[in-house]
């Protein structure tokens, strides 16, 4: 692919390598804390595994996929080679080096603070430094995406930037802005404290800064999946994209509304007043809009494909879709999980309802369903879609691919739906063991066992994924056609500036950030006594 295959494959392979390490950790955690296993003699091992699993899947795996897929979107949609390839490799190695430093520190037991950090818990500075290095690496990628976007616009003035490139740039801008929260928390609060330069740290302020990142980071993970919905799925289904414009509107809305809403993670926090909690609740409702628009456009695009393939009647077109194609199958599974996870998300975002399930296993169920389910299954579909183009070899078996997707979808549903239920019963998240002999905990034993067993299905599915990718890399080389992106029913010939550039929207994002985060952060200049000494978790 325009000479970039090695770079892109390096990203995907690194992502799936850390995936291969972190998935078994998650499965192990469910197993050891379920009634099927005796209590761990050393619970620290459990939390160490949670830290490694969370760090990998929050900061490393999706970042590598987004970067790799960003380069794919660049070369395929712009139809020309990448520039700044040496910078791209630098970004790659920074992410790898940062991840290696952070994860090695976690493995040594020196940073069992979970991926959310939550000072005043304090681990080895190497852990935070590693994450910071990885984030800085990803910022280079952000710069490259913006540069490709601008250079193409300069070369083709007045023409619409292809949707895949437009959306990738929106994702890059979103990440650059939202990662500033965790970046500032690490640089100005956590590292000075971990190195011993400051005596105290303000846990309330740290939580506010982290919330700046904590919500929009999920949309950074989601955007590659949405790009696949808009630019790969209609083509794979044999149809057309219903509306190119609506795609642009959706990505712009994601960019605008995913950021000034993070305080909804702090509904139960004492350091934020009711007014700002409510304001963020309102904006959180707005972020449902681009997802609802996307679901409409994607279903309409699939209907076009189904009818072109001879589907008749109200729902006959559904049966006529090419369900044997991985992209079509994975997208449908993704939409099912997105729908269920979105429904539980509506409860989380509800200012009052959240009290019933805040920080229970329900929340873990919610974000695993959305991210590990709806989003990650699309990462698989993206890998399957481009593997032949990247390696020059066909996939080893479509049958195995479908089995892998089915087991992931069923495994994830069977893992996370019981989590929602036990969360409703009041089971807290992040616990190394439970006393199921307590009659008040006993009703949860069955459901926790079900999740633990479903974890084994996910483990099988993950192993199958790796087998398919490795085996497909070793089949004899074949002649691969050039990758193509979906055409819209009416491809835009020209667009208003607002749908073809980001200038005005960046101003709006900045203004909304100041409006929604200005006071919640600035108040810490005035409150007294809120800083406390750090508590080290480093192995003695």
């Amino acid at each position, binding site marked *: 692919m325009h000479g970039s295959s090695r770079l892109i494959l390096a990203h995907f392979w690194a992502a799936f390598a850390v995936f291969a390490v972190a998935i078994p950790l998650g499965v192990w955690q469910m197993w050891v804390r379920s009634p099927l296993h005796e209590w761990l003699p050393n*619970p*620290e091992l*459990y*939390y160490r595994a949670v830290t490694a699993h969370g760090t990998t899947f929050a900061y490393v795996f999706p970042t590598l996929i987004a970067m790799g897929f960003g380069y794919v979107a660049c070369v395929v949609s712009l139809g020309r080679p990448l520039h700044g390839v040496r910078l791209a490799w630098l970004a790659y190695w920074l992410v790898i080096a940062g991840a290696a430093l952070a994860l090695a520190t976690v493995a040594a037991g020196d940073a*069992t603070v*979970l991926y959310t950090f*939550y000072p*005043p*818990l304090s681990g080895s500075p190497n852990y935070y430094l590693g994450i910071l290095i990885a984030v800085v690496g990803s910022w280079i990628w952000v710069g490259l995406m913006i540069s490709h976007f601008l250079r193409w616009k300069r070369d083709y003035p007045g023409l619409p930037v292809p949707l895949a490139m437009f959306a990738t740039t929106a994702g890059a801008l979103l990440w650059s802005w939202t990662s500033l929260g965790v970046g500032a928390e690490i640089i100005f609060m956590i590292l000075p404290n971990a190195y011993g330069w400051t005596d105290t740290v*303000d*846990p*309330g302020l740290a*939580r506010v800064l982290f919330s700046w990142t904590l919500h929009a980071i999920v949309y950074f993970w989601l955007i590659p999946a949405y790009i696949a919905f808009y630019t790969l799925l209609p083509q794979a289904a044999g149809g057309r994209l219903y*509306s190119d414009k*609506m795609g642009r509107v959706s990505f712009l809305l994601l960019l605008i509304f995913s950021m000034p809403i993070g305080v909804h993670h702090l*509904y*139960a*926090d*004492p*350091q934020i*007043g*009711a007014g700002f909690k*409510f304001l963020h609740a*309102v904006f959180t*409702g*707005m972020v*449902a*809009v681009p997802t*609802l*628009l996307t679901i*409409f*456009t994607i279903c*309409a695009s699939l209907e076009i494909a189904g009818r072109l393939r001879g589907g008749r009647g109200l729902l006959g077109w559904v049966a006529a879709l090419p369900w044997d194609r991985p992209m079509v199958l994975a997208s449908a599974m993704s939409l099912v999980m997105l729908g269920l996870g979105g429904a539980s998300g509506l409860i989380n975002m*509800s*200012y*009052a*309802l*959240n*009290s*019933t399930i*805040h*920080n229970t296993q329900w929340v873990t169920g919610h974000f695993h369903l959305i991210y590990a389910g709806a989003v990650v299954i699309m990462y698989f579909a993206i890998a399957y879609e481009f593997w032949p183009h990247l390696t020059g070899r066909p996939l080893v078996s479509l049958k195995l691919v479908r089995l892998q997707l089915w087991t992931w979808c069923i495994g994830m549903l069977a893992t996370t739906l019981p989590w929602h239920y036990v969360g409703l*019963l*009041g089971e*807290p*998240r*992040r*616990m*190394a063991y*439970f*006393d199921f002999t307590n009659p*008040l*905990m006993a009703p949860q034993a069955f459901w926790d066992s079900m999740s633990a067993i479903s974890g084994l299905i996910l483990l099988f599915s993950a192993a199958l994924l790796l087998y398919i990718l490795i085996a497909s890399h070793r089949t004899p080389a074949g002649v691969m056609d050039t990758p193509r992106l979906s055409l819209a*029913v*009416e491809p835009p010939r020209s667009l208003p500036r607002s749908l073809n550039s980001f200038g005005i929207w960046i101003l709006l994002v900045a203004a909304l950030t100041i409006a929604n985060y200005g006071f919640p952060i600035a*108040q810490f200049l005035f409150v007294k006594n*809120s800083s*406390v000494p750090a*508590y080290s*978790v480093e192995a003695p």
Partner: protein
Amino acid sequence: MADSPQKPATEVVDTAERGWAYAVGGVVAIVFAVIVYSGLHWAAQPPSNVETIDATQLHVAGEFVEANLGTETRPQPDGSIIVRVIAQQYSFVPSCIVVPADTPITFRVTSPDVIHGFLIAGTNVNSMVVPGFVSEVRAQFDQPGEHLMPCHEYCSVGHAGMWAVVKVLSRSEFNSAYIGEERVSCAR
């Protein structure tokens, strides 16, 4: 397309999308209405008191010294009863809380060390406990009974052992059991 009786594709797309946009607007409006209604009508408000306290001095002086923890038996002027709790690595003090049913309860919770969570299972009582801040949560228990009260935020290695219990007694039982005592827990 000009002489075709069919509408051009862009027009069909635009009409359908406009219709859907209205539907989406309706959905979001309903969600807002439910949030506002439940927030105001049921006074379902998360803890938002933004009240700071010196976390390093809790045990020495002030509201959260040990003798002042637990359930106050004397009601406030508005009829509510205050329960003060410390969440610390790795226990709650008191670790068994006793409260009367059908009485407004105000929980005041803080931490001397790291972040903890405060959740009474089967109720809407749910708050983060952030050192440096006091979390105030209001609740009322309709039924006598027993609830688990786990810490729900990771607070380092002993976290999974950090559970307490809330015992809800009927009003008359509570009043007769604790005559003449100012502050009570299950251990009296």
